[in-house]
């Protein structure tokens, strides 16, 4: 795949989703262990070491790579699960680990120098000196860029650091600097940074009141809906809040990120890989999104105009945005 247009990096929340993504044309899949060491620590998801070994075998037989996300921040006094996860990823033959914590990066660099290291979006490296710091100290080969940058800013970073970059192409729009957002733990006591679950389902409730539905996280109401209206999942940055007497989606409209129409711009910016989000989504979702991106990338690689895929039904709220890519939220 030396003439690859852009590497397509796809979510594998479960072994079944891994196979679905590989079969639908992923170049690379990413997954995590079934514990607090990865940022999608939700019930029913993720891999144990044996499943990872099987997943690596399945993917490799089909020319596909496997990345393991170990991208939360260990709690003090309990670093062992993170160190073990790095050891197990290496033992399973993973192509790279995706890390965020300075201590875990240091551990992986010292104990598994040959295991390729990628920098997680959770490390929030949004400028050239930050990227250079991780490159110089931990020999990081690729950085997953925060969703806060415009295409122009991405191009400048690629040029200045000379490092491989991976950018989000499909999923949610994250307005906050990731890995250092404490909104969810402020409301629930459970930390996305340490426990790997933002707005955990155990703390979500939908309450019927006077003909409307309140969505709550912990004891805090994040939105109201008319009964029968689809109620979006209550993540703190996607709630409605009242400022200056007016209720609004203060942080982010209920829209999804879809960069499929700007793939040539991302390619021209020097991006190496596209990340599809959705380890918590179904196998069918993964197959559909991966398939659509595969088609688009193959068409572009042949110099053709890609077919317009109807993916808007799959984005959050059924509406799409380029996120920060076009204007950088100016």
């Amino acid at each position: 795949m030396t003439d690859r247009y852009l590497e397509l990096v796809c979510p594998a929340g479960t072994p079944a989703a891994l196979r679905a993504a590989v079969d639908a044309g992923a170049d690379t899949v990413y997954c995590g262990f079934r514990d607090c060491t990865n940022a999608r620590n939700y019930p029913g998801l993720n891999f144990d070491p044996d499943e990872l070994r099987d997943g690596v075998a399945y993917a490799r037989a089909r020319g596909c790579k496997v990345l393991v996300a170990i991208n939360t921040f260990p709690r003090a006094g309990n670093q062992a699960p993170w160190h073990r996860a790095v050891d197990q990823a290496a033992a399973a033959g993973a192509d790279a680990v995706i890390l965020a914590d300075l201590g875990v990066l240091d551990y992986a660099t010292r104990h598994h120098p040959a295991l390729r290291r990628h920098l997680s979006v959770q490390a929030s490296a949004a400028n050239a000196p930050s990227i250079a710091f991780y490159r110089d100290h931990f020999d990081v080969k690729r950085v997953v860029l925060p969703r806060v940058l415009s295409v122009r800013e991405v191009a400048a970073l690629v040029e200045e650091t000379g490092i491989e970059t991976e950018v989000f192409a499909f999923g949610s729009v994250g307005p906050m600097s990731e890995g250092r957002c404490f909104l969810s733990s402020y409301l629930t006591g459970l930390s996305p940074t340490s426990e790997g679950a933002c707005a955990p389902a155990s703390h979500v409730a939908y309450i019927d009141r006077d003909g409307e539905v309140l969505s709550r996280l912990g004891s805090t109401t994040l939105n109201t809906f008319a009964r029968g209206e689809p109620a979006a999942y209550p993540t703190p940055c996607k709630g409605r809040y009242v400022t200056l007497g007016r209720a609004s989606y203060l942080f982010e409209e209920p829209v999804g990120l879809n960069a499929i129409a700007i793939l040539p711009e991302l390619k021209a910016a020097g991006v190496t890989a596209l990340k599809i989000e959705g380890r918590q989504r179904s196998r069918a979702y993964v197959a559909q999104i991966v398939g659509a991106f595969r088609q688009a990338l193959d068409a572009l690689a042949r110099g053709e105009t890609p077919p317009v895929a109807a993916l808007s039904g799959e984005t959050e709220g059924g509406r799409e945005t380029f996120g920060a890519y076009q204007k950088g939220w100016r």
Partner: protein
Amino acid sequence: MSTRPPSRLTLGPLLFHWPAQKRRDFYLRIADEAPVDTVYLGEVVCSKRESVFAPFRAEVIERLRAAGKEVVLSTLALVTTAREVDEIRTLVAEGSLVEANDVACLQVLAGRPHVVGPYVNVFNEGARDFVAGHGATRIVLPVEMPATSIRTVADTVGGTELEVQVFGRLPLSVAMRCYHARAHNRTKDHCQLVCGLDPDGLTAETVDGVDILTINGTQTLTHGHGVLLAELAMLQADGVTHFRLSPHDLDMVRVASIHRDVLDGRCDGADAIEALRPLTGSVPYVNGFLHGREGLAWVGRP
């Protein structure tokens, strides 16, 4: 216990956008009257605000130093533009002690002694050892850290100083998007620094009328003030060396005195909270993060 270092009281960087004259008067009063050992100066939230205070900066630094305060220069929490990177380079070149709030600053410092700010994640002893090995002499811990973790990270062997915010609204997130501008139906490019209207931030309520968050430009903070007066003795015993007060538009000299009295054992935490209440209006207090609870919780005396 007899070798415990003295507890230092610090004034964190002003997070809100105050007019230059108000800032200058604030810091000159701090220099003259507040029993704080260290003052952090610098714009952490938005680089568009920086030029406003520039004419008074040198005077304020000089007056604080003349009053015997350690001055630490704080950097932006989210750095994305080349101009912002250049500003970090200029700051580091000045040679003063710097608080690094983005990993970019660590790269520019290249191992020189510095303070790691609360916006760089140091959650565990592995990360602590790494930054300490690369020049960090003090680490300001993330606001989310529970006491059990603080105890573990407290480095009694290596001597790295540890700082915890003990007063003021707790920063919860930084973003590229400006929520102050959004709340006023403006774009970030045409914000006209509307964040300056709210010296303690703009309250965001839930749709059912509960005050929940504070908006400060691109930053989001708790609505309640983080207050750890009742936990100061425990934090001292656990190895925290520096205790941060985050500036608000209220009598910070009195806030500092109240904390100094508790740190020195002249006043008990519960009495100190009673003394603090009249200064903070109707804003509630929170301390849940330290107790391993939801951050908005208030855990009374166990």
